[in-house]
């Protein structure tokens, strides 16, 4: 774990008070059949903010984060991402998706492509970059996530931690404004979790807007600007890590913390 003080000092440099709202959710609800997965979720995330979403399993955290780049469709309410409202208009969806990077629990790398092609494919065909430039960018991103030597391998030849770092590089290659992480470390062996978290911390320090669903309390304490606690499809409590871990207001939050800490 890096030093707590440096992190907070860097975090303090960001002027979050005057930052623009980049994700706005107003009364978002979603049902799977009769089951209500999201119940009137309203929240705002500012530019450069790092938000960690906590909650017991089945509380709707993943569903919510997947609604934000429309991998799931919400049925009520409004979601605005960087000024674009998510609706059934395909062009809006494609626009939002190319601005929002996503990292999945199961990595979901493309198994038939090399690591380099995994990273450079979308920039070439979605961003229409020249191939040479895209591959150069892929190389520098792989360097950034610490695995430049694996560029010619296939995903199946990498360890879980390395695969997840490639997945982060793939999302970053689109130069997104927002990164969504859907339980990025849940499918990893314990000794590989740290290498992924380190990359995520570096990303947070560089000023990326991040929304992270995770069970890593250490990461939440150290990096988050804001913690949102969800249960039963609702946001129960929003607060800074200090407030959340030391002095939560809601009973359900206390219960949750007592179970995991």
């Amino acid at each position, binding site marked *: 774990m890096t030093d707590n003080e440096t992190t907070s000092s860097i975090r303090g440099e960001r002027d979050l008070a005057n930052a623009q709202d980049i994700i706005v959710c107003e009364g978002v609800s979603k049902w799977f059949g009769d089951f209500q997965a999201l119940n009137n979720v309203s929240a705002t995330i500012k530019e450069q903010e790092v938000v960690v979403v906590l909650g017991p399993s089945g509380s709707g955290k993943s569903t919510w984060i997947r609604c934000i780049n429309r991998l799931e469709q919400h049925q009520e309410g409004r979601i605005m991402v960087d000024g674009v409202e998510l609706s059934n208009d395909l062009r809006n969806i494609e*626009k939002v*998706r190319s601005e929002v990077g996503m990292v*999945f629990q199961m990595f*979901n790398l*493309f198994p038939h492509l*090399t690591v380099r092609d995994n990273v450079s494919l979308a920039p070439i*065909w*979605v961003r229409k970059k020249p191939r040479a430039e895209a591959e150069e960018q892929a190389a520098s991103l792989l360097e950034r996530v610490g695995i430049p030597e694996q560029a010619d391998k296939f995903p199946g*030849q990498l360890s879980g931690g390395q695969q997840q770092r490639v997945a982060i590089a793939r999302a970053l290659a689109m130069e997104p404004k927002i990164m969504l992480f859907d339980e990025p470390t849940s499918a990893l062996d314990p000794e590989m979790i740290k290498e992924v978290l380190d990359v995520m911390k570096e990303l947070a320090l560089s000023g990326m807007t991040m929304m992270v669903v995770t069970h890593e309390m250490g990461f939440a304490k150290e990096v988050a600007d804001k913690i949102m606690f969800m249960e039963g499809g609702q946001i129960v409590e929003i607060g800074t890590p200090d407030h959340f871990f030391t002095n939560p207001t809601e009973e359900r939050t206390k219960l949750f913390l007592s179970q995991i800490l």
Partner: protein
Amino acid sequence: MNLKNFTSQKQLKTDPLAEASNSELPPKAPVLSPAEWLKANLFSNTFNSVLTILSTAAILLIIRGLLSFIFNPLRQWSATATNMRLLMTQAYPEHQYARIWVSLGFLLFLTGVSLAFWRAGRSVLLSQVGKRLLAIGSFIVLVTLLAPFSSEATIIWLIVGVFIAGTGFLLKSSREDKTTSSMTLLSGAFLLAILSLWVIPYGHHSYISTRTPKILAEPGTVAMTTKLPWTIMLVVAICSYFLGSLIRDKIDEAKGKALLSTTWLISPLFLLFLVLRDPDFDTGHLFSTDIPIFLFFSIVGSVILLWLTNPDIGEKGRVISTAILFVGFATFLFQMLMIVRILTLVLAFFALAAPTFSGQKPARIRYTKVWIGTMVILCWLITAINTPSTAKVPGDFFIGGFAITLMIFFFTMVLAFPLGVLLALARTSKFPIFRMVSTTFIEFIRGVPLITILIFFSVMVPLFLPDGMDLTEIAAVTIAFIIFEAAYLAENVRGGLQSVTRGQHEAAEAVGMTNAQKTFFIVLPQALRVAIPPMVGQIIATFKETGLLAIIGIFDFLYIARSVIPGQTEFMGSTRENLLFVSLVYLVICFSMSKASQRVEKRVGLGER
């Protein structure tokens, strides 16, 4: 997943302690001696021993029966040997035969150069080769002992078998690290087989004691018209391999490979013309009508597509492509050539797909090249359909036998494959209209016997054709095959499409790919890889189904063997010999396809799990 393996390997590399322990080789798994192997695998208990003895006896009996059939003095093997030309090309005129040899030579040349460029072949341990030879030699000895040869022939073949086995035995005990290239072995085998044409009197059945063979060629030799061309073929193949390895180092390898692949794709079209058309073929229609139309579409289409693939074109592009689509449909309201209608629709399809493949200059030029390539191939196909053959032969069609089997098989596969993929995509599409059309088509075709479709296309379809459109029977039949096989291939591909996980779709969507990009770059490559085994099964089935061509009166390979040769007065009643030969040819080809597919599977499986 071999994640665990990988991490342990990685640890081995980094951990000095592990490295130290790694320098000592791990103990090898104990190797069983032959006697121990026999005991462990064949005689492990009473029941197994009985089974082993019984099945060995049964296998020996079967081989013995087969050999006594093959080497029976009553067999007329000369029927097959004499009629080889009929079996291969039916009535193709003999003085034109050089054209077929040139085609074959060209294919061998391409094969040789490609083998060199792709660095085919691997190094094989000499001891492995030795094992193979030992097995082959022992098999020859076994066959000789079982077969009803004359005593003289038995001795000759025993010597041959023992010689091969002995060579194998010597090689087997050679040093561990001695290797040779599998290409050397292959060309060696090819060389021996062809040299033997000059030395061994094939067709002169000296190994059967009581027989005066009926032989049309000079007795005891192979005809000059067989051995000379084959020797030339051998020289061509070997020279082209060396030429390939020579050029390989001189020029840019990627460019050379691209050129070779293109030549492979175009060569069947070119070769068919070579076999089909006389030099005095009337090219008037071709130059006055077809080529100008295609030229026009190539140029105008290229300009439009170059413009449409500009990434900044935006809304205007969509309007223009939709307009082209409407024009395409509107052409059916007016009197005009069918080609023009079809080409306008194809152009509309390309225009609609343009935004997906838009990009910087190289991407735009590549897309335009694909368009021009499509034009060239369509131009060739339509010309081939519209112009009759000028090779003068008795009967309806210029060529038959094995050649027609191969030809129809090849064109069916090349065209049914893309159609099948399109059908599968349509059937899994989000749009109900596509789903409905594709499902109806597939289920209808799969519900109708192939024979019905063949007869329908050869008898009914020509009646419904618009005025001025001429469809030769062979083209009609090929279309029937394409439609039939596409329906089956579509179902195989659909199985592959369903095996692509939801996570892959989501990952592709999350980086902002459009539906077409997702399908083309992510879903299809993975789906096709999964679909290889069932598709190869379907391809093999197609190859064998070409035997049905006989029903609509085309003299295919099987029909000639079954009905034509046994009808010749000197070879009455030689059906069984011919059928055995034909089955052997089918077996060899189907088996090699299956082997090749296993290799492809291994290759594309690279990096998976």
